[in-house]
Every structure is written in C-alpha cells, then in structure tokens.
C-alpha cells in the first residue's frame, strides 16, 4: 500500500546512506539567473555539468517586461546566465527566445514537466510541477551546484500529508482560493516537513492551470512538495508539447503514468479534509499567506486575539495601514498586478479578462503573462485589448512585480491587489502593501478601486 510520494521516491532512489538520507536521480534541472552562486561553486571546483541534456536555463527573475534591462546589474545577471549556459552547453531560453517565460510556466508548457519525473530548480515554487504527478521541489544554491555536478540530490524523505477537498468549488471560486483556504487553516508552517498530495472531487475538477496554482502555493503552507496524481486532464495537456514523448512512446508513457496514484488503502502521516462548498473568494490582509480571510470578513482585531497574537496583529496592521474591524471590501487599493508563476497562465488571464471586459480599471496596473507563448495566445484571443481598454499595462513575460527584481515594483506605502504568492513585507518593493487573491478578484478590485467580492460581477458573464 503505497502513496504517490512512496512510488515517486522509490523510483528515483539510487541508494540510501547510513544516516537515513536517500540519493535521488534528477530527471530535469531548471536553472535561472539566480543560479549564479551555484555556477560559481561549480567553476571553483573545476567541475562540468553532468547532464547538459537534462539541464535547461531560462531568463525570468530579472527579465525586463518593458524595453531593456533596468540597470547594468540586472543586465549582468541575465548575461551571466546566458554565458554559463553557453559555457556548459545547456539549452537556454533567453530574452529573445519565443519559449522564454517564468520557469514554472515554461517547464509544463514545453513538455519538459511530465508525470513520474523528479524536477529540481533553485526556486521554492518548484512545487508547481507536482501538479503533473512529478516529485518536484525547490533547492538552495549548494544543492543546485550538487545537481549540476552529479545530476543527483541527497534528501531525507518527507512525511506525507493528504489534503482531500470534497464537493465542488462555487462560481467565482478557484484554485487560488482553495490554496489560501488550507494555508489559513493549517498556518504558513502547517505543512513543514511534509509532502502534500491533493485529492478529492474539487481537485479532480481543476484544469492543469488550476492544479499548478494549487501545487505552486504548497510552499506557502510550509510544504516543499505538492502533488496531484495524473489523469486524463494531465495526459491531454501534455500531448503534442515539444519536449514530451510522442507516438508509441507517448502511449507507453501513459501506461506508466496511470500507475502513479496512491493505492486505495495507502496510509498518510496526516489527513486533512476541506469542503469546497464552504470556500469563498479569499484575500489576504497581512504579511504572511496565512493571514487570509473570505472577502466578506473584516480586518481582524488584536483585542480578539491572545497576547502573543495581538502583538503580531498590531505590528502587521501598522505595516499594512489597516484599522481593526474595517470591512475588507472597504479597503481601497492603489494598483493591481496580474502575473507570476502562481497566476499568469492563459486561464488566469481569461478569468481576469472575463471580469474586465467592457469595464474600466479605477487604478493603474500591470498584466504580465507567464510566458511569451501565453502572451501570443492571449493576443490572438484579444485579451490584451480587454486589459488595455480597461486602462492596464500589457507587458512582457517574467517574474516582474511578484519579486521586484527586474525594476517592476510597488512604491512604499502603496497598496497592491496582486495575483502573486507572497505578501511578505517588502516583497513587491520596500514598504509595499500586498493583498493576495485570485486573478478574477484582482480584476474586480481594479474595477471598483477597493477589495471586492467578484461573484456579483460575474452575473450574466461566463467566468472563463
């Protein structure tokens, strides 16, 4: 009786050490500009990249979204990646490559991400790829150097946590709301030390885009790994992608992929069940992803909390410029951002456009598609016109204002409704105030100028 985690782990285990760690084989290693420390370590050893064919580079964290790199330091980061890729013989999707985009968007898009693979990247949102039934996890620079040099990684097997979501999500409620709901319930460290497997009817009903959003946010609940057993939805998504197997090889692969699910009576170290019908559109009010509430609620009050919590809430509200007891829907925003590895896929853009069509945004904002391919597809569907007609800027692909490394940032004290993954202090720029929510909810906030329940705004429209 094995869990999906057991099956994936066992399939990649080369050996175990006496200290309890496993040496695992890495099927795909994705690198980006931030991998410069690891390349420097490799160079210092005089080592080669063990498997250039399994190592793919992409420019994303520092990618300019308008024109050229904002500063010489940013240009140097991009150049360093391209130089390292050339020196070690790696394929690299540079700024001019039509396959360029955010690493966790382009992996699946290119068919590099497949069920049953072990995927590493020096980025915590690597859990995204688990949506395909892959063992995918973020690693630090020392580990990146190890994977470059050996195509393997040492890991202690995590515990297993199943999050079972029964029933159906309501209209206007999506994967982002589901993710923030479980993180609010378990806490931002709630799944530390665990690999999360998402299951249940509400998860099965999600598209691959939705599944990727859900797995992407696993790390915000503390889990390095998130995963969903592959099914027909998965196989349909993969079929025909450039790096995916095709013809008889695809059929053979599907035979194997169909074995990748937890056995019926497999036991998990922890089990959590959520009822999808109880989940409303969610927004964050604080500086940790666990500070999340239904949009119909009010800003929490320190006087309702224990002494320790009260201090934290007071400090958080001070940073966020919020008063206790204020209805969340009364919180006015200064700008919006639609983008990031969490919510910049075509379905996300369609969901935002469905709300914005024929409406104007009261605040300025940026829409940054997850990849150049998504940008082209959105333009072919006319979504770019909906965004620009609403008054928002339609820009290039990259991590952009989610991590504020490329020059796109939120000014001090400004409040941004954002489809990103982290509302940490200063994440979108020093002093920036971030409210996390779904693309449809960001679009609704843009139209009204304050946090808003998107559901009434979808009446008479198809929610994409």
């Amino acid at each position, binding site marked *: 009786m094995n869990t999906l985690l057991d099956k994936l782990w066992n399939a990649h285990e080369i050996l175990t050490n006496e200290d309890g760690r496993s040496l695992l084989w890495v099927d795909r290693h994705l690198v980006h500009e*931030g991998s410069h420390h690891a390349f420097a370590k490799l160079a210092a050893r005089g080592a080669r990249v063990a498997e250039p064919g399994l190592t793919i580079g992409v420019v994303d964290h520092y990618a300019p979204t308008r024109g050229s790199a904002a500063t010489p330091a940013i240009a140097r980061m991009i150049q360093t990646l391209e130089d390292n890729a050339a020196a070690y013989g790696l394929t690299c999707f540079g700024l001019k*490559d039509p396959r360029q985009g955010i690493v966790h968007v382009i992996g699946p898009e290119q068919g590099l991400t497949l069920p049953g693979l072990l995927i590493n990247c020096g980025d915590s949102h690597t859990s995204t790829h688990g949506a395909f039934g892959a063992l995918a996890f973020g*690693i630090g620079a020392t580990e990146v150097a190890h994977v470059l040099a*050996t195509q393997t990684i*040492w890991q*202690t097997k995590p515990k297993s946590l199943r999050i079972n979501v029964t029933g159906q999500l309501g209209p206007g409620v999506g994967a982002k709301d589901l993710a923030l709901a479980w993180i609010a319930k378990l806490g931002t460290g709630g799944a530390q030390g665990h690999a999360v497997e998402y299951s249940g009817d509400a998860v099965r009903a999600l598209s691959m885009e939705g599944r990727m959003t859900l797995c992407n946010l696993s790390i915000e609940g503390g889990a390095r790994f998130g995963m969903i057993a592959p099914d027909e939805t998965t196989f349909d998504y993969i079929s025909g992608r450039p790096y995916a197997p095709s013809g008889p090889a695809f059929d053979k692969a599907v035979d194997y992929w169909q074995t990748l699910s937890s056995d019926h009576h497999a036991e998990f170290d922890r089990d959590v069940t959520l009822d999808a019908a109880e989940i409303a559109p969610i927004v964050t009010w604080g500086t940790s992803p666990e500070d999340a509430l239904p949009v119909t609620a009010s800003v929490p009050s320190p006087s309702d909390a224990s002494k320790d919590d009260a201090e934290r809430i007071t400090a958080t509200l001070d940073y966020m410029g919020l008063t206790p007891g204020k209805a969340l829907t009364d919180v006015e925003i200064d700008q919006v951002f639609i983008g990031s590895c969490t919510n910049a896929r075509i379905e996300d853009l369609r969901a935002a456009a469905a709300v914005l069509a024929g409406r104007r945004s009261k605040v300025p904002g940026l829409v940054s598609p997850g990849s150049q391919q998504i940008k082209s597809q959105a333009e072919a569907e006319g979504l770019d016109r909906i965004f620009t007609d609403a008054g928002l800027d339609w820009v290039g692909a990259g991590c952009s204002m989610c991590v504020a490394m490329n020059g796109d940032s939120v000014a001090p004290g400004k409040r941004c409704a954002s489809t990103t993954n982290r509302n940490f*202090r200063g994440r979108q720029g020093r002093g920036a105030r971030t409210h996390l929510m779904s693309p449809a909810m960001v679009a609704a906030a843009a139209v009204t100028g304050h946090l808003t329940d998107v559901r009434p705004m979808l009446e008479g429209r198809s929610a994409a």
Partner: protein
Amino acid sequence: MSGWKTHLGKAICLDIENVDTDQLIPARFMSTPRAEGYGSFLLHDMRSDSSGVPFSDFPINKHPNASILIGRRNFGSGSSREAAVYALVDFGIRAIVAPSFGDIFASNSVNNGLLPALVSEEDATRLFALIDDDEVDLSIDIEKRKITVGDQSIPFILSEAWAQKLINGWDDIDLTEHHRPAIAAYRARRAQTLPWVFPAEETAG
C-alpha cells in the same frame, strides 16, 4: 568548509514570528557576488530606515558581535534563496535556535555550517525570558544536542545526517563522487526501462 562540534558565543533574541527569507535579505541585494560579503544585507529593511540609518535598538545593531540568534516559529520561511543564509553567516551567526524552520532554509543552513537548532515552544520562551534585550553567553554542543546557558540546559533536535554534515563540514559533492558507479548503473537502467524520461529531440524553436 570546516566543521564544528561546539560553539560558545553571545546569544540575542529576535522576537518576531515568520521571519521570512525576504526579510533576511531583500531581493534587491542578491545580484551581489558573494565575495563582497552579505553581512550588511542581513535583515536590512528591518534594521534601518528608508534612508539607510540603522535603528540603534534593533537586536543585531545593538549587539553586532552576536553569534547565536534565538527566533520564533517559522524562521526562514519563504523562498529558496541561499543568500538568506549567506547574510546570517557573513554577519557572524553560527546557530539559529527556534521552534520551527522553513524546510529549504534549514537545509541551506546546514550546507553552510549554520546550525538550525529546533527547540520546543516552551524552551524558546524560556530563552526569550532569560535573554530578553540583552546578550548572554550561551554554549552549544552538536553531538549532545544541548544548549547551555548559565545553569540551565536545553535540548534541541537535529537529525543525525545534519549533525554529521555540520561536525565534519562535508561537501556533498565529494561524498557523491564515491557513488559514481551506482549513479551510472541507475541511469542506464532508467534509460532502458523508461526511455521517454530523457527529453525528445527539440522540435520547436
């Protein structure tokens, strides 16, 4: 990297939950080469105002010689940026003592000789009460998994694998080199049984 078994140093408290890696080092500093030193970036936006003037009462400003940091739950949550560990190490921190750590942060710490000492909530609170705003001599013994402060002794949790890495200062690449034959055999087996896991020839672009 050289290993260590015991450390005696000044311990200070950082009484904040969820100190995420964006706090430990804001992203804008991460294009700096490591050789330039990351110590001045540690907790940069918490320890100084927007014009860069340090807050004199912020713990690491008040006690710049501290080498042990006592933290609250979920220390090092967030991104995989190893630069967060570089900032701590370059500042002179050898150990973080906290009731829980971000998984990736803890593993990055061990790879850089920084001890993530996991203690109970109760023991963390005891240390906070004992040290408060001061700096206090504290000793750490990795083999015994023991923190000693005054006449008090506090246990911490650390896996044997991580203890051995910290004590020996091992570089995993050296360790893995010994397993080259096993890795090659695995690769050959994988290529034979599941050939599709190796990417097809590029057809796009």
